[in-house]
């Protein structure tokens, strides 16, 4: 159990709903779900969901903390926003799923090596460095996320697509040595750090 997870358990006892309401982005909407299931049926990757959003909401109410936070369901969100526009209770389901994923990641409860989780981290790290995303570095990082050998395989597998992008001038191999960046990248870094600090304080993270 991570340190933060232990603290969270101590802080909220068994009131997982309260924990979600306070700590998860838009988590205070969870209680408004009426279990119609329209979100579950609206998700393009629905069949890949271990638990549907509506069921996750019910699990939260039932205090199934581990099952929820350890699930890879939320990581299946493609951010298509179908669930949001269809929800009859206007729950911001996409955001709640993102928030839950983020929270599970934060507590290090999310599944290890969950591909979207890994990529999300890579993406963020990439953007924080310069203020902008360097697609080549991001792609390479992705290919090598599962280790060097797998990375070569992944890169080979996508080689033709990659090469055609290079040919079409939509993937610049020169970006590896520099590429786009914001002028005020240090300001951005400080800004993000500050934002994170405020949020942590607000949500009661003590680390």
């Amino acid at each position, binding site marked *: 159990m991570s340190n933060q997870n232990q603290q969270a358990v101590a802080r909220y006892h068994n009131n997982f709903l309260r924990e979600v309401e306070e700590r998860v982005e838009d988590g205070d909407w969870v209680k408004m779900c009426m*279990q*119609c*299931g*329209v*979100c579950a049926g609206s998700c393009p990757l629905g069949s890949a969901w271990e638990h*549907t959003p509506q069921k996750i909401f019910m699990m939260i109410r039932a205090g199934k903390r581990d099952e929820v936070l350890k699930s890879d369901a939320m990581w299946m969100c493609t951010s298509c926003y179908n669930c949001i526009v269809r929800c009859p209770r206007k729950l911001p389901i996409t955001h709640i799923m993102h928030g839950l994923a983020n929270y599970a990641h934060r507590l290090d409860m999310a599944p290890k090596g969950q591909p979207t989780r890994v990529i999300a981290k890579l993406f963020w790290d990439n953007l924080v460095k310069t203020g902008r995303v360097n697609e080549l570095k991001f792609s390479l990082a992705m290919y090598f996320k599962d280790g060097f050998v797998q990375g070569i395989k992944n890169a080979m597998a996508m080689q033709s697509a990659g090469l055609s992008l290079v040919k079409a001038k939509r993937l610049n191999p020169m970006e590896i040595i520099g590429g786009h960046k914001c002028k005020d990248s240090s300001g951005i870094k400080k800004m993000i750090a500050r934002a994170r600090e405020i949020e942590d304080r607000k949500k009661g993270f003590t680390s």
Partner: protein
Amino acid sequence: MTDSIATNQTILVVGGGIGGMTAALEAAECGKQVMLVERNASLGGRTALLYRYFPKMCHPTCGLEINLRRLKGNRNVRVMTMTEVLSVTGRRGNYSVTLKVAPRYVNENCTACGECAKAVEAEIDNAYEYGLAKTRAAYLPHAMAYPQRYVIDPSIVGTNDGEKAKAACKVGAVDLAMQEETVTINVGSVIWATGWKPYDAAKIQPYGYGRFANVITSLEFERLADPHGPTGGKLLRPSDGQVAKNIAFIQCAGSRDENHLRHCSRICCMASLKQTQYVREAHGDAGKSTVYYIDLRTIDRLEDFYQKVQQDATVTFVKSKVAKIVEDKDGNPVLHGVDTEGYHRYATPHDLVVLAVGMEPEANGIKLPDDMLLDSSGFIEGSKDEGMFGAGAATSPLDVNRAVQSATAAALRAIKVIHKTATVEG
């Protein structure tokens, strides 16, 4: 014709559906003078277009017949059809109401012999069949229409067809020179029995009403099931005229949905359960009904009906708000969603989908006096001066039985206003 037809001892009832007719008759049978105005060409409202009522599976026209007989035998009620309220001024006990009377182009001489309809060639959408069928431009609204008088559609006035209708009438009932009239009357109290309208199903985009021919509304399904309807009571689907045997019913189509109607429309669960029995009536054990629902709201003894339908092997219940409908190659609507009891994903094709559309106050489409008090969905709670009242489905999404109760109560509220006025004046 102003003071002669109404006084501050008259009750004005707006709307001639089951609620309005009831309010008018109940007050009249207490000896009060009533003016009943209806926007359409005949009385009966939405119930006249239903095939059967739940839970008895009896026919709405049966009660309509009784009410019409009460009306025919009661001189206290004066009926004006094709009449709308333009404005209401004044206050409790003494209102001045301006009415707009649209021309029917047929006068009281009409004997409903039907010669005009035979003579006319032009056809118009039959509003009484929700546009599922056409009718001649000279028409009797429906078999039980009261007043039993034909209507000439304005579209043929000034045309050759109009003249043909006029020529065909042996009793001089066709009057193409009729003009819209505005009438102002004085009344003591107003009962708004303006009823409800089906929520516009096309706005519920994932269900594709309007895009997919085989997605229809529950009201259209009533017409399909009715032997007097466009298919002679056969459950034929619109896309190809094939018999629909495997039928899906989608609950809360617009209701309980903050993107559409906030409220629960109350009647739709029972209406769909009733309609599953139309499928049984048409196909016996070969029919198949699937009800997709969030909560089944069959309160009080209506629960008996639910329990009975649960015993019917042709009916299946799926606790799910359907996410979306797509159409397959054969024009079958395919329903996508998740059964939330447990977790079962489905993609189920049906022959026909019936959307149990929600009830929206009809008054959302008309201008009510500023004095009226409405709830968040536009249903009428009353008026600030307590001289005007809602009745029936104008006050809340109500089934027929409750609408009649509400209308009966409204009649008494209006009578109290009249009595108070009389006492003060006398």
